[in-house]
């Protein structure tokens, strides 16, 4: 009877011990997803800016800059001759804030170059 009494809350204690670990794992996965999402955003926006500037980015062009291959609403005419060229787009994005920490800042540059 004494042993049974001792074991009565054992499961609750085990759950209480495991719960933070499980929570940490799921939160970690969520942060990882957030960073991945931000990185994907960065890469795509940077590439988009290198090609089209902010024409199609609209309000999502914030944090994006560079020199685009597109000019005046159309693709840039390729200047004749084998002259060098370089177009680029840089984009930044931030993942969601972590527990007690700010989000991860990501910076990506896309380049179209002849060099």
């Amino acid at each position: 009877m004494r042993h049974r009494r001792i074991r009565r809350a054992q499961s609750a204690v085990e759950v209480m011990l495991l719960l933070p670990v499980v929570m940490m794992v799921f939160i970690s996965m969520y942060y990882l997803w957030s960073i991945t999402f931000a990185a994907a955003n960065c890469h795509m926006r940077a590439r988009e800016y290198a090609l089209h500037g902010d024409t199609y980015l609209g309000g999502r062009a914030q944090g994006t800059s560079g020199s685009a291959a597109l000019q005046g609403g159309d693709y840039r005419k390729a200047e004749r001759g084998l002259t060098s060229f370089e177009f680029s787009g840089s984009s930044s994005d931030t993942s969601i804030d972590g527990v007690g920490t700010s989000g991860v800042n990501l910076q990506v540059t896309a380049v179209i170059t002849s060099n």
Partner: protein
Amino acid sequence: MSRLPSLLGRARRRAGQAAVFVAMILFTLVIFLALATNIGIVVNDKIRMQNTADLASYAAAYSEAQVLNNLVYLNGMIADTVSQCRSTLVSSSPYVDCLCQYESPVAEAVIEACKVALDPLILQFVAAANYTASVTPALQRGYSTAEANFEGTRSQTSFMETLPGSPTFMGQYWINYSTHYMGGGSFPAIASYTQANSIQVNYAHLTFCPGPNCSCCIPYLYYPQDSFRGWFYKDNSDPEIWVEGRVFGTPKKQFLDVQYSGGYFGASATGGDDLLYAYAVAKPYEGSVGPTVTGNPNADWTIGPLYSPGPGSLMPDKEGDLGMVEEYRARLAGLNEALEGGSAPTDLARMDGAMLGKMWNVAYFKH
């Protein structure tokens, strides 16, 4: 009391039971965490790789568009030179004298000067269209762009142009040319171009001398005839100039693989099955180097009308009649796009699939 040893034995058997569960659960959680991290790394690298393929293909296509605009410019120079020669023949050289000859020395001198002026322009066009001077540098720019976007991908980038059997492989397209005094030949080129070899020129002159003093020369119109080797025209209406690029490789980052035979879910940290692939297609478009023999009767002047002076002159207009439009630019294209008209990426994708030991369904190559 007799039950006590039995109870104690059972308790002893249960000792450590929770630890086993905890260990199993923790192991499972670590696997999930590793899986999530791996997915993040792979997704990130796949996006980088796709961007790299897109930008590398675009850079190569942009470079090809530059070459094509240069070809338009040079072809236009040839057409301008021919036009000027014809104008000169009409406006000044005829009727200069009554020499009782079948040819006008002045007009013939103009024609010779024109031929001398045309030859270097023809050679410039050939040099610019030459495959090794146009497509090869363009692909180098694609490699440079790949490396600038994803370190280590220069050697992991390939263009279908380099594969035998590709419609844009070296030797699929040729330029055939001849000059007046500097020979001719044919070379692999960025697209197939043929020369308008017999752009007929003639001039009105005075030859008929009815009397010994040549007092009443009668014009012998538009005779004799000579011909220029002139501008270049395309052999087909729309040469397939595509840049199809592929970037592949195993990301450098160390995966958090759980080491057991075959790796996690059949993948392997050592490469092989971890290879990622990204495909992209870009294309020069919107310009036109010159007329097509199928779509424009002015392409080869031998099948066009003879020149006649005066109002309504039939000298072809560079942009209007000959369709020389210096507006080439580059754009990304879907791999599936060619299904509607062309065949290059379709065949190339299949060819590449065969290299991988698989038969790709081109419908999957949308992006």
